[in-house]
């Protein structure tokens, strides 16, 4: 009952934020009028359909992906500090996306390569962290391995963007490391959509298996779960969804960390039931942060990752402190 109410509340929140996201922008826009005039080629309807709608849709899908993948990884690793951005999946995706976007692949026909590259990068970075940290690694080893991979990927991006032929490339480093949703088109959304949805689809039905992992891998196995197959399935799903998302938005930090952690008590700490609500929560947080960066008056547009990091980093510290207390 409590859970159903949570799902309803989060859904309403996401819907309200989605509509607000369509409404907020540099130009005042009566969206109802614009929506009614959809057929006409009015300025209002074009701004609504071609600029604000893709932005809101990308925020919705990217946020949901980050929340969902954070919950899946935390459940898989039975570790509240695991998330795609902390363990390197996101930065690996961004690095490969940078390679494809800035070097040689300038025709629009090769654009579908972008989410594929993001996926490959996310998968490689995730596997590398696991090889570095070992399978049954402690929280600190995993985070240190993630820090190493993140630093390496960011340095790689800086190097590549410096070497890129485009004179604008270097300035876009912040876009990849902080994340950004401005001025994306429906084309960008359609590009990220199939891989994102494929990643989500791979996660259908893993909820119960993640719940069983609460009892450890061996006991979960005697409950009919194949932990090895589950691990690969989640890695692949995260690579697909996060890879496609990051290659569109850049690395938006902390959503995958905060959201599952905040919502976990609401679903009775059940790793399986956490998945769906984390997707809703992630979507709500990213939509809200993206509205926030548009409302804060700055000279140059603020990157959305700046806001999520300002909220997320202190939260991360809090998590580390409470984890330390438990281990003392």
């Amino acid at each position, binding site marked *: 009952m409590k859970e159903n109410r949570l799902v309803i509340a989060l859904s309403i929140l996401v819907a309200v934020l989605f509509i607000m996201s369509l409404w907020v922008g540099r130009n005042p826009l009566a969206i109802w009028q614009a929506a009614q005039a959809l057929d006409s080629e009015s300025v209002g309807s074009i701004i609504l359909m071609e600029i604000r709608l893709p932005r809101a849709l990308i925020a919705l899908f990217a946020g949901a992906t980050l929340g969902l993948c954070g919950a899946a990884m935390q459940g898989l690793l*039975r570790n509240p500090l695991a998330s795609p951005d902390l363990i390197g999946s996101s930065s690996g995706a961004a690095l490969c996306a940078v390679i494809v976007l800035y070097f040689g692949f300038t025709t629009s026909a090769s654009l579908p390569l972008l989410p594929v590259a993001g996926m490959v990068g996310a998968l490689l970075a995730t596997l590398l962290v696991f090889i570095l940290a070992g399978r049954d690694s402690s929280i600190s080893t995993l985070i240190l391995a993630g820090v190493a991979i993140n630093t390496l990927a960011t340095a790689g991006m800086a190097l590549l963007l410096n070497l890129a032929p485009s004179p604008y490339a270097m300035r876009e480093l912040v876009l990849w490391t902080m994340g950004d949703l401005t001025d994306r088109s429906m084309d960008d959304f359609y590009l990220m959509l199939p891989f994102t949805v494929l990643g989500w689809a791979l996660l259908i*039905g893993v909820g*119960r298996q993640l719940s069983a992992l609460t*009892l*450890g891998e061996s006991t979960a196995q*005697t*409950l*009919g779960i*194949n932990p090895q197959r589950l691990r690969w399935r989640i890695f692949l799903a995260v690579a697909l969804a996060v890879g496609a998302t990051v290659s569109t938005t850049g690395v938006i930090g902390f959503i995958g960390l905060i959201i599952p952690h905040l919502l976990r008590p609401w679903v009775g700490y059940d*790793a399986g039931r956490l998945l769906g609500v984390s997707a809703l929560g992630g979507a709500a947080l990213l939509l809200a942060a993206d509205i926030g960066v548009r409302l804060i008056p700055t000279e140059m547009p603020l990157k959305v990752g700046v806001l999520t990091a300002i909220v997320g980093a202190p939260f991360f510290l809090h998590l580390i402190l409470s984890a330390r207390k438990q281990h003392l």
Partner: protein
Amino acid sequence: MSSTLLKTTVLSFSQTKRMILDAISIELYKGELIGLIGPNGAGKSTLLKILAHLLKPDSGQVFWKNKELSTLKANERAKALAWLEQNGAIHWPLTVERLVALGRLPHLAAWQKLTEADQQVVDQVLIETDLAALRGRDATTLSGGERSRVLLARALASEPQVLLADEPIAALDLGHQLQTMQLLREFAQGERASVVVLHDLALAARYCDRLYLMQHGKIVATGKPEQVLTPELLAQVYGVECVLGATPYPWLVPVRRLGAI
């Protein structure tokens, strides 16, 4: 129809070139409570894991009724066998009730939620294991003994035909040791059976139908408790001189360590 539930051919298992199990076999009949006893490092837990299909033996097979265990679907196997891990982990602070309900997972169809019947099984198990009062508690904050009972309750909630329990009474107080052995005894009736790793030989003698005494990966003796628990065998395997009795219930007092064995 045979009354055999679990049966193995000759099993061997080694790890990093060390022989853990050396050509042993075991058989479990319906209605039986079997005790695996022996000193530390004898290979009892390894044998239990092979029976639970968690480890693959280097040679030999495990049969469930007449089928090879590995040919069963994972879900069928999960409904047939439950394995109770020694010092099992609880990774998230679930309530006791939710944790026990995880045992129902093999019985649920995809997307199906806990039914009324499932909830009744959980309630029943909570009462049997004396946990009804703790059902709302955070399972990670329980004492060691309460925690083992919760994990036993989880295994019972799976309603398996065979329960494989690895030292289920190690952390329990006297009262709950008796209660747990009584539960296992009641469980292993009719169509069901259980294999339990035990260190308390007196309780093993009192509750088990048969014992397997293991040492260095081999089975030294097997049979009814009074056949296995003899001063001679105990001296040979444990290196301890024991005094045994059977009135009114089996008892055993270790007297002193014998010289090097």
